């Protein structure tokens, strides 16, 4: 199968690969350890998957903000994302 029209690069492939890995991981977690939704600081019911979605979407905005507002190296935004992820999984 020729995928050259999709213009793959190693970084983007790695990016999608890790997203896919996280999705698979969370699916396995959900099957192994079923959970009941809980209500967090946002006042909405969330499951693990919801919190993952909020984390990923928020991280995208954090990265864009980092790129647009600071001149610091981009990888440092990932530290902030990790803190954000921890906060989301703890309190949302």
């Amino acid at each position, binding site marked *: 199968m020729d995928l*050259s*029209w*999709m*213009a*793959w*690069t190693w*970084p*983007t492939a790695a*990016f*999608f690969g890790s997203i896919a890995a996280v999705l698979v991981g969370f699916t396995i977690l*959900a*099957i192994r350890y*079923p959970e*009941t939704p809980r209500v967090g600081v946002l*006042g*909405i*019911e969330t499951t693990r998957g919801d919190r993952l*979605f909020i984390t990923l*979407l928020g991280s*995208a*905005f954090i990265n*864009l903000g980092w*790129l*647009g507002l600071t001149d610091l190296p*981009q990888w440092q935004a990932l530290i902030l994302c990790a803190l954000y992820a921890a906060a989301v999984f703890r309190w949302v």
Partner: protein
Amino acid sequence: MNRTVNQKAWFLVLPVLVLVAFSAVIPLMTVVNYSVQDSFGNNQFFWAGLEWFEEILTSERVHNALGRQIVFSAIILAIEVPLGILVALSMPKRGFWASLSLVLIALPLLIPWNVVGTIWQIFGRVDIGLLGWTLRNLGVDYNYTQNALDAWITVIVMDVWHWTSLVALLAYAGLQSIPEAYYQAAKIDQASRWSVFRYIELPKMQGVLLIAILLRFMDSFMIYTEPFVVTGGGPGNATTFLSIDLVKMALGQFDLGPAAAFSLMYFLVILLISWVFYTVMVNLDRRGER
């Protein structure tokens, strides 16, 4: 909580997943790939890193389009929501006239976007259009192809004409669900018309109005066809909203990289709004169940 856990039904979703993979996921991946590269055609790509994202984030052109987009969405919401409520309040509640007005009000919603655009494009022309010609002969200096303000007014009036019906229909549905007893109680208390609206009708319409506002916001935020057909984004860039600007960049200038970065950010914003929309609706439903 004792819920039976049975996740096998998820397999039934597989055909949809395959469809979505081909229609959305694979194209989206391609856009992500484009966004970090530069191309001069011929399917040859050169690594550009985050350059395009930075360019779009600091681009005055995109900022201006975003500003116009927000102003446009704000204006049409400020007009359509109160107007829709007003229309719903003045519609008959039952009988022949109720059905007739429902059908009449729903008509604009049935017209395809590009046809709406064409209708208003001709309607507003000063040489042959009813509106443009009449205004011109009344001495109003109206020309949507040359005057930015006229173009804005035309596009906004067109959107109001096309979509107020949606708000009206939703608000009407909300009004219909209020039991007669509420009105009788209000009458006994000698409540004014305003109090009836403020303390009975508005709280009961809250759910549907929220849906109407979110729907209209999202739709207007992604608007393309109607303004494109009427003004083509002009005069100058006066009515170039986000999606029109995006198409200009991607197809007009064939700047695949920047356009891909632009559309990804646009997509993220839409995704965020959709998520808020979905969450609010689900939580409203839950509150309704309790």
